[in-house]
């Protein structure tokens, strides 16, 4: 009885967030490497100032605070120098940057995927450690995404299936990514909720008015509508805190995902944090985007008569089904269930 009760309570919950996990990693790979490549090009004129040996924070200052086991550009420089002919620190920094760019291009194109992903992750980490004082959200997000990309199965190997290996590993990695994103939103939502500023709308207002954020969309007019600012501030807290709970429930997942995407899109437009916003959007779509899309398809399938699409999926899900049965199944629950299972079956074939 208890088992049935729990089962019934958890029936709307989809802990597996069923979806094609390999496709999710393709999305993560293309999205993240594209953003990082664009960001690298954007930062190019300031590379020396941000990461160079004589930058705004020179290497020696960074070394004081960095743990000895963390690889940095100066660490690479000393390793290279220990092999014989000493190299100019500037040359080491520029070479590392070139290697990072090349690996990003390979990753984006999907060539030598594993090697490219490991190289990008490692060099991203090196740049991150060499410039610890100036890190902000996008660096942490990218680090998380690259770590999962490094471990994710190569999407080029889709046809070479080993049964268990291909199905379990992507599923585990996707689930870990999803949980990590949930923890992230819970943490940031909670951090906002414990102070009074987000409840009064002040935080939002102060963030929007800071000179460092060069908005694409002007926000000064919001000052005339303090209630609107207050409501938006409270909704940010609610959306972030609700995320780890709501995102697993099939019926509302799509709404929560859309709200969080709007939130990040707004950050991009009003605060000018395009790299941060885009990375967060890519992470969200990789984690829950495909599952949400399937939810949407299921909802639409309930509301419209059976189409050729459902029949095709049905025939792919159960290869042995005869034409007569396929013809009789309409847009009922069975059809929807099979639709949502289809990509996983596809993945295993």
């Amino acid at each position, binding site marked *: 009885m208890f088992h049935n009760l729990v089962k019934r309570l958890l029936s709307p919950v989809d802990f597996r967030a069923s979806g094609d996990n390999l496709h999710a990693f393709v999305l993560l790979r293309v999205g993240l490497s594209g953003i990082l490549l664009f960001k690298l090009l954007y930062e190019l*004129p*300031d590379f020396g100032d941000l990461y160079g040996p004589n930058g705004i924070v020179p290497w020696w200052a960074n070394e004081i605070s960095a743990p000895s086991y*963390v690889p940095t550009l100066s660490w690479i420089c000393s390793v290279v120098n220990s092999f014989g002919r000493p190299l100019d620190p500037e040359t080491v920094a520029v070479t590392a940057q070139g290697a990072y760019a090349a690996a990003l291009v390979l990753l984006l194109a999907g060539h030598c995927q594993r090697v490219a992903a490991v190289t990008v992750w490692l060099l991203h980490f090196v740049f991150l450690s060499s410039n610890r004082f100036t890190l*902000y*959200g996008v660096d942490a997000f990218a680090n998380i995404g690259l770590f999962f990309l490094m471990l994710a199965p190569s999407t080029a190997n889709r046809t070479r299936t080993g049964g*268990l290996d291909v199905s379990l590993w992507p599923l585990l990695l996707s689930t870990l990514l999803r949980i990590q994103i949930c923890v992230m939103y819970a943490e940031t939502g909670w951090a906002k909720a414990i102070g009074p500023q987000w409840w009064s709308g002040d935080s939002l207002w*102060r*963030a929007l008015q800071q000179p*460092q954020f060069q908005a694409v969309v002007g926000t000064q007019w919001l000052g005339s509508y303090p209630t609107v*600012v207050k409501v938006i501030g409270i909704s940010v807290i609610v959306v972030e805190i609700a995320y780890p709970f709501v995102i697993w429930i099939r019926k509302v997942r799509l709404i929560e995902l859309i709200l969080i995407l709007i939130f990040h899109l707004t950050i991009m437009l009003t605060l000018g944090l395009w790299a941060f916003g885009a990375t967060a959007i890519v992470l969200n779509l990789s984690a829950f985007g495909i599952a949400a899309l399937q939810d949407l398809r299921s909802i639409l399938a309930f509301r419209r008569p059976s189409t050729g699409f459902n029949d095709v999926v049905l025939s792919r899900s159960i290869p042995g089904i005869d034409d007569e049965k396929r013809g009789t199944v309409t847009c009922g629950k069975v059809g929807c269930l099979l639709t949502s299972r289809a990509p996983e079956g596809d993945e295993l074939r």
Partner: protein
Amino acid sequence: MGPFLIKVRQWAYWMFAAFHLFVIFSFAINPGNWLSVLPERIQDVLISYGYLTGSSSGFSFFAPHVPDEPMVEITVHRKDSQYRFTLGSGNEERLRRVSTMLLQLDQGKGYFEGAVLFGSYVFAHDDTATLVDVRFYRHAVGTLRTRTFLTPTEHTVYVVSFARSSYYVP
């Protein structure tokens, strides 16, 4: 691959997942207390793993409150001229990164340490500079209630000057 190896591999996957989750939650819930009870070597392993994988990153963007924005103005004196600039001006990404650093300096009151960095940065890039003034100030935006966005104010919090061979505080 034999069934035994498949089983071993499956277990390895699960162990990895459990460890990763443990690290995520350890840092997210209460890093200080959770880690301090563990032996130092294990703490190092967890911190390193968390740092490498991003699972130890704290996420508290703009929380619990948004402070006034700290800024730095640098005046460079030459023998017969002088010029002034705001640190971080230019590229948006550069500005963002410099702002992050200034926020950390402001929160830790590390104005002097920051000023030393910025002073040496100017001397390293401008051979003709003889004296550098570094001014830390905050850009106050006011509250929503007062809506002081029309008259943003600046508060100077720290000023220090450096000469090429030594420094002095006026």
